[in-house]
């Protein structure tokens, strides 16, 4: 088991290196003169030159890469071209709302999606099953911003149950934070909930046809017990996989949601950086999102061993 853990963790390193190279190349691959592009149409040659020097664009690519990589290794992600504030500081200021929003969204999606999918799986073909599937298709198909504005209109503007905009930090109390994030999280979680419900349903349906489920029933165990104790753990691998993908997708989702609900998080930071061509911020956020994605999927991989003891002997099976 330890060997399996270590191997999986080491296998992530080349992926992270590739990510770093790709992020560095973002600037290099910009068509034309990146400095000109960043500075905008109205910039003077001096301004362009200043940007060029600041980003080491006057150096050969290899030297630039070394400088960027070495700074990265020291935790230095550069400074914002517009505000001159270190990117790490900007990220630190903005990370809490995004983290809370993502966490709340995924918890909501799992807590609703898994039971819904499991329930549908026990009643395949029934009216309830079809209703659940119809709902999940709708949740999957409606764009986040439409759902978001719809929720704002009804829940906030008509019913005045929840605030329409803004974010209350954790320092103002967990209740206040949750209150401010509930609408955005509900709007954002629809897609993931639908995905999780569908995958859970399919996985549980398949497991329920397995011989060992019949064995469990023949032992005189109740339906509910068999479903929760015998079927769900064996259906867990596709479910955690789709949750892992969901977390990756969430990082893109927050950009829209944070803009709609005016939440000062990383998504908003990314959106404004892109509009202002603030390359160090874009690079840093791309890098951060990619690293989070890789790490989440590493966790997903490791959890396979938790759910299926056969994965732990992966090595023997592969030979």
């Amino acid at each position, binding site marked *: 088991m330890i060997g399996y853990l270590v191997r999986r963790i080491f296998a992530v390193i080349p992926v992270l290196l590739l990510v770093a190279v790709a992020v560095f190349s973002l600037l290099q691959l910009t068509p034309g003169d990146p400095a000109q592009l960043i500075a905008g149409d109205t910039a003077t040659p001096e301004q362009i030159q200043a940007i060029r020097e600041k980003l080491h664009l006057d150096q050969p690519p290899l030297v630039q890469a070394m400088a960027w990589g070495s700074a990265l290794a020291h935790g230095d992600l550069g400074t914002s071209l517009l505000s001159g504030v270190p990117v790490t500081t900007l990220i630190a200021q903005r990370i809490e709302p995004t983290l809370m929003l993502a966490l709340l969204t995924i918890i909501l999606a799992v807590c609703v999606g898994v039971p819904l999918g499991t329930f549908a799986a026990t009643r395949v073909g029934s009216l309830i099953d079809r209703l659940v599937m119809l709902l999940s298709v709708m949740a999957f198909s409606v764009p986040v911003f439409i759902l978001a504005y719809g929720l704002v209109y009804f829940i906030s503007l008509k019913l005045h149950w929840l605030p329409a905009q803004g974010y209350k930090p954790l320092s103002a109390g967990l209740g206040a934070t949750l209150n401010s994030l509930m609408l955005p999280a509900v709007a954002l979680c629809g897609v993931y909930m639908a995905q999780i419900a569908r995958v859970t349903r399919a996985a549980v349906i398949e497991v329920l046809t*397995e011989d060992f489920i019949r*064995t469990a029933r023949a*032992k005189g*165990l109740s339906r509910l017990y068999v479903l929760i*104790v015998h079927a769900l753990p064996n259906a867990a691998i596709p479910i955690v996989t789709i949750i892992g993908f969901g977390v990756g997708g969430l990082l893109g989702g927050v950009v829209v949601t944070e803009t709609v609900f005016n939440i000062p998080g990383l998504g908003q930071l990314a959106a404004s950086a892109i509009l202002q061509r603030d390359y160090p911020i874009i690079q840093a956020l791309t890098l951060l999102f990619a690293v989070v994605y890789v790490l989440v999927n590493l966790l997903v991989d490791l959890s396979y061993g938790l759910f299926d*003891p056969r994965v732990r002997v992966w090595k023997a099976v592969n030979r």
Partner: protein
Amino acid sequence: MNMLPANPKLPLLAVENLSVEFRSGRQWVPAVCNVNFSVEPGETLCIVGESGSGKSVSTLSVMGLLPERTARRSSGRIQFDGRALETLSDAEMTAIRGRDIGMIFQEPMTSLNPAMRIGTQLAEVVRRHAGASPRTARRQALEMLERVRIPDAASRLDAYPHELSGGMRQRVMIAMALMSRPKLLIADEPTTALDVTIQAQVLALIAELKREFGTSVILITHNLGVVAEMADRVAVFRAGEKVEEAPVVELFDRPQHPYTRALLAATPRLGGGSWREGRVLQTIDGAPSPSVMPAPADAGTALRASGLGKRFGQTTGWLGRLAKPIRAVDGVSLELPRGQTLAIVGESGCGKSTLARMLMLTIAPSEGDIEIDGQATASLRGEARRLVRRRIQMVFQDPFASLHPQMTAKQIVAEPLVNLGGDDSRTIDAKVARLFDLVGLSPAMLGRHPFEFSGGQRQRIAIARAIVLNPAVVVADEPVSALDVSVQAQILNLMASIQRELGLSYIFISHDLSVVEYIADTVAVMYLGRIVERAPRAALYRSPLHPYTTMLFQSVPSLDPNARRFGHRIAANELPSPSNIPTGCRFRTRCPFATELCAASDPALAAQDNGHEVACHYPGIATQDGQARMSELA
């Protein structure tokens, strides 16, 4: 012998007029029609029948475990222990299942929860039914594992199912079914997926536990040998109906129904001889006329293998520990004369399928070479290798999984010709039609897809596909072990008649010695990657020289209820792991005759009389002659 109490009591289970229907689209079609059967206390009732006979469905409806939505009981009364099971609620049935009726299923590999420890799965039963505390339940689980004689039971409690062999898993299943000492045990084909040696052990165990706990047993099987070994009374099912019921001796001595008689006639039995001697396996719908056909003499060699070996797991990934290589096949030499059949027998894990895949040139040997039609293959690459590979074709075990579901029968058979190129479509059509005729399929079936065929018909398609390129050798890996007895007889007859007509050479891999006797000219017995005995069929069946071969023969159920073999206790005794091969003679850990010499030195395959070869320091010791000789020496 049946140990019934003196005064005939009510039967433990009485099933009356049971009918079950299956859903087919929007309709319900009958699967079981008005079936009656009963089980007395302490009795073993065998329900025998082929697939689709309704034998499993009947017992599943006793358990109330018919697949919901696709099957339903349409009529019938099920009296069990004074209660009418058909009137009980789901909750009441749940309380009876596992407590009063235990059940063992066919597939030990898939019938245990792969993500749960053995001990937990066993403990669940008594925790559920007796409300036992975790500690008590665990203690009882351990006791039960010891009762079914799982070696090192204490450490097995925390094992997961995949860490156990098939035979051990079936012991766990038995332990689980008996955890709360049920009055009735239903065993649905409990040994079908097991090797013949393990089957003997598991059947002996069931018989022993039945005697000890006084449990009544319903044993469902398609194997008449198992019936002869186990039954007090037998019910024969066919197509959803019970056609005959009789005490076991009566059934075997004086079968009444034509179907029972046909079933008995279609079952290959040891000592029946080979098709070359004019023997024909009866099939349910009549048999082709017999014809004597001696093996062709000296027609050359179709396939020769020398010093074949295959090691797995030598290379290790980075950071991986250096694993000990598994020697799946070790120093195997073979020769297959043209027009003959070489059978390879052995338990699962003995390396016979790895050997087959090497002979097929689909995996490369670690050492040794294979000659096909006199051409060495080891150095062949690319196109030359592809050409020689066409000379050797394969028929697989599972006809349901080995045909492409989206291709028609014609496309499947024609595919090798199409790939080869050269023939125009009219020639290909003609060839395929001829082959269909040869394997006994109607031309009307050409356009059908595999799911429209029965298992036997699919195996006919697989055979047609294998011989369409006119190969030198056909490797058949357990080609009949997934088929019903009557269909098995048809396929074996077909393989014999094709060999007679086309002069094909077969490598026939099987664990079933009675099937091998019918089809083989030469038999090679494999044990842990080596050939331990090889002989012409008649010589091997007359006097096996290796103790392992003798053990295999003794494990075959007898088909004679008056000459049962498994009444005595048989110790759990399984094939060692190929990663941990015993020193000296590989078989010595399971050999009752092993001596110090066997531990010290590894016997080579040495020639005896009449082309008989054996790898044993004491050839023939397991026979009575051999034992007499040994006692003289001592």
